[in-house]
């Protein structure tokens, strides 16, 4: 890594990967696609701050069930600013895409863990929180301006917050922080924003699958956005989760339920997907219902768990299964 970009020698390779991903993604028939996060080779959490000169690599560790950890950078001096915004990935993807693009960004609450416990002399925690919100709003605004049809804020740390602090205080604080940032958008913009939650898929493992959605979902639906992308496929008791969603869903919300489990090496069949959608439709009004994958296919530089062929086979199953369900539900 040099400067704010990648090694120029790798650029043509990444470019080819993005183009291929988009071609394959479009080939699945998905009405909305992403760039597969090909350029977030660091990971989905810290891509925006990797390489910041005022950080050290010895930040907090996010432990995963499989035993590995993702260690965050630690901020050592202020002021804080992103090193890169996700709209640069979007810009590149837009060159090849022919269908609407969704861009994922990391939430401010996830990045709030950059600031160390003992504080930073001369750079207060309050100032950091302000800088963080400004940077997040900047990133999302740039993505919207560049033409993302939706911007999905990754809030994978929601469940993690419950795990770290079962009292719920930390989760409430995360919700507050994200809502403070969301308040800076217009209602029209917020209709194009969504929040994604999952137990944190990484190397076919999770960091918080053991946290009950019941501790998360009531707070999650307090987030002031129009769209929710909720991992569901890998949940052991999907009906229970659907009941919770129904209980907290507001008329202005749209919920995209996970019907594909990326960390499951088996490719779901379209019929399985169809059945999952039909099941969800019993709890969520069809007009407010959408489908998604539980999580991304984690194409990060050190995650080789899922092949590209598997990933697109799963996505194709989602598209086909959703279409089957739509026909069954009489949705045009």
């Amino acid at each position, binding site marked *: 890594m040099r400067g704010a970009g990648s090694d120029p020698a790798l650029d043509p390779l990444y470019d080819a990967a993005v183009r291929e991903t988009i071609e394959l993604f479009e080939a699945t028939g998905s009405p909305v696609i992403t760039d597969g996060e090909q350029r977030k080779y660091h990971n989905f959490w810290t891509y925006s701050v990797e390489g910041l000169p005022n950080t050290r690599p010895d930040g907090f560790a996010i432990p995963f069930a499989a035993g590995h950890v993702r260690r965050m950078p630690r901020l050592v001096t202020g002021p804080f600013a992103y090193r890169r915004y996700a709209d640069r990935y979007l810009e590149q993807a837009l060159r090849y895409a022919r269908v609407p693009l969704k861009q994922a960004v990391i939430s401010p609450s996830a990045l709030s*863990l950059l600031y160390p416990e003992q504080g930073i002399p001369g750079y207060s925690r309050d100032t950091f929180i302000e800088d963080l919100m400004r940077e997040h709003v900047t990133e999302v605004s740039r993505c919207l301006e560049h033409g993302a049809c939706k911007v999905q804020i990754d809030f994978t740390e929601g469940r993690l917050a419950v795990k770290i602090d079962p009292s719920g205080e*930390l989760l*409430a*604080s995360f919700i507050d922080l994200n809502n*403070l940032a969301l308040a800076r958008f217009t209602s029209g913009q917020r209709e194009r924003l969504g929040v994604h939650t999952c137990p944190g898929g990484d190397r076919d493992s999770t960091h918080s699958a053991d946290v009950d959605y019941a501790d998360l979902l009531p707070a999650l639906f307090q987030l002031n956005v129009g769209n929710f992308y909720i991992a569901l496929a890998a949940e052991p008791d999907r009906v229970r989760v659907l009941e919770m969603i129904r209980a907290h869903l507001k008329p202005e919300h749209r919920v995209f339920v996970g019907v594909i489990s990326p960390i499951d090496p088996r490719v779901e069949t379209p019929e399985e997907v169809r059945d999952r959608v039909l099941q969800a439709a019993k709890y969520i009004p069809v007009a407010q219902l959408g489908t998604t994958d539980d999580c991304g296919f984690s194409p990060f530089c050190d995650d080789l768990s899922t092949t590209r062929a598997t990933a697109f086979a799963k996505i194709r199953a989602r598209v086909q299964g959703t279409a089957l369900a739509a026909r069954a539900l009489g949705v045009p």
Partner: protein
Amino acid sequence: MADEEEQRRLRSAALKNAESILAARQRVERELLDAKEALERKTEELQDVRARLEATLRAAEIGTWIWDIRQDRVVLDANLANMFEVSPEVAAGAPLQSYLAAIHPEDRPRVQAAIAQALDSENGRYELDFRLLRSDGSIRWLAVRGQVQRDATGTATHLPGVSIDITARKQAEDAVRESAERLQLTLAAGALGDWSWDAKTDLLSLGTRAAEIFGVCADAPLTRAQIRELMTAEDAERMNAVFEDALKNGADFHLEYRLVRPSGEHCWVAARGRPVYDAYGAPSGVAGVVQDITERKQSEAIRNRLADVVASSDDAIISKTLDGVITSWNQGAERIFGYSPDEAIGQPVTLLIPPDHIDEEAAILARLRRGERIEHYETVRRRKDGTILDVSLSVSPMRDVNGEIIGASKIARDVTHQKRADEALQASNQRFRLMADSAPALIWMSDLTKACTWFNQAWLEFTGRTMEQELGFGWVQNIPPEDLDRFLQIYTESFDARTAFKMEHRLGCHDGSSRWVINNAVPLFEAAHGGFSGYIGSCIDITELRQAAREREHLLQSERAARTEAERLGRLKDEFLATLSHELRTPLNAILGWATLLRRVPVGSDDHLKGLETIERNARVQTQIIADLLDMSGIISGKVQLDVQPVDLREVISAALDAVRPSADAKKVRLRATLDAKVGRIRGDANRLQQVLWNLLTNAVKFTPAGGRIDVVLERVNSHVEIAVEDSGIGIKPEFLAFVFDRFRQADASITRRHGGLGLGLSIVKHLVELHGGSVRVKSPGEGQGSTFIVALPISVVRSDDAGRHERPSFAEVDLFSVKLPSLAGITVLIVDDEPDARVLISRLVEERGARAIVAGSGEETLRLLAAESIDILVSDIGMPDYDGYRLIQAIRALDPKRLRNIPAIALTAYARAEDRQRALLAGYQMHLSKPVEPRELVAGIASLVNIQQRP
């Protein structure tokens, strides 16, 4: 444990962040609260403002309305509902059409058009006045103003506005308009314009007619500064004073002043004004009328001017009755006749007539009664002091308003002085013509019409024509046709501009020839009043002067050209000398350098041999340079003579190719020859032709880079043969092609540096070819694209006996390098040279071939040795101090005995030109060899002269 500790720290950090997030949230909530309170305050203020506004609108009888365009609902406030006589329910929302019905039928189309225009226009403004027809038949005037509102897509959504009842204002306006119309009619009848000045605004408003008088637009009031601009400064001051006085004293005023309208037109106006007072009795301005009095003022001015003219005239202007009684008498009359007006008026006019002219008056009066005018009647009159005057009388009848003749006006001019002046002028003219006739110049005069009125005697004698022939425009025939247009143009233009002119032209002479003259003319202006009266001009014969000037100019041009050529040649010479110096010094450098080195290297070593080869090669280069120079010298002086023999060009070309082949090979330049066998012999000098070919080939090799090629083609073309030498070398720039064969020319300095040489080779080629009656040309597509030199030689018939004659041995046959040298054993050679080195060298050369060498350093020593020794042959230098080679051989040829007198002698000299050779042979030498001499040539020459056959 470590993981647990890390989890604890993560939780701790996250919860500390939570505190900051909470603080941030509280800040935002506080800000929201503040904003909400501020909004509530603003809302309350807005409601207050709205209430006040509504009250104000009600008080001002202003109604508000809004038309929801998409819903087609017009909402009226209470004021307007009352005006339109609609119920509150209808006023809360009714279609537009329902309101249009209440509008006066004449105004309805205007209202609809105004609405349509507001909806279509960019500014969306809706504005007009219209009448409302009330149910009781009365009419109310409404002024409405509105503004279209549009949504984000630009679609008109609402048209809100206000309406004001302007009925009272309209009625007042009508009354004012009627009153104004009546006033304007009144003013028009009196050709008057109305105006008013508002003291408060300091603005002057003009009625239509007043504006016309001022030449300005009636619509806009004028400021005081604008008014001042229309007046003279003096009148403006007067106007100010009059205004102030009127306001101060409440008095009317009347002022006449000049105006300069914005168009620049001048006029006179008379203004009358009266102060106007407000309700409190304070002066609020001035109102009045204005009248254009320009015509009246002009009439007055004319009358005054006439009176001034009469009064100030130098002539006597007198009026009288038909009975001859004087009724008016101006100052001129007093001055001329000496009577004062009191003395003259009432007296009979016969007072002024001498007794011997007394009858004239009766005749004059009789003519006047008949209504006749008498003009310039010259007669005499008598002054008060009794002296008699010459006068010129002009008398006109005077009529009353009915046209009846009631008297006469008489102008009497004292012409006594004029008569004297005329006489003096005649005498002066007589003197002028005498002088002009006796002048050597040709003098002419013309009048206002450009026609000539007089020529002096010299002119008439020169042209051989009479005055009658020349007068008017007859003189034009003297101007030759080739000069006529130019002459007439200058003559006419000068005439029209009244300027002097001076031109050279030819003029026909009485003997039929044309001679050049310089014609000087000036316009004539009358001394008395400066009026232009024509031209006077004089011509002087300059034929000889022009001839001399032309010759001088010719000489000047010749001299200039010669100087330019000399400068050019000088430059060429300088360049050549620089080149020559370089070319001579370059081999010298190698020679001298190696000569020094050779002292230090063992004889027979590789270095020794290499040094000798280098010295020899460079010496040969120098020899070639000198040979070229001598050739060129011979060519320039025309001393090159061809030894014309039948020549086989193929042999010549082959020999030349053989000569350059070593250098071509060394440079890896390929040589090819295509020699047409059908080309027969031509007549020419084989050696010189070979020199031509050698030069072209050497040149080609020099300018062709390694790996290139040179093609030589010999072929017959029509009646001549052509030898083409084509190379793939550096080529020639198009602009240099024309100079290729010039002496001392090479393409440019850089080439000169890169390729040595004097630039003589091609010049020699050209001369030698031309000596053969041929030509040489060059072509090159351009730089880097090679060159082709083509020598064309005439095919002259070679007689058959030519072919059988002994032909001069070809170059190859006499090549001294290729023949075995004869021995000189038994021969004693006397070597004469003032240079010891030269003596040693020649001695060594002949001794090597077995001869005995005796040396002498001077002429005296030579003669002594000749007498003392048995000498077989003499080899002598020419350029020696005191006793040169010519004197020496002449002395020897005069010796006795015969043996000494006839001794064979070779001149060996650095004087190498053709004429040097000739002189040496004429002086008595049998052979002339030039330095540096080829050893083989010298040995062969000695052998030849002592008649020794080649020995083993």
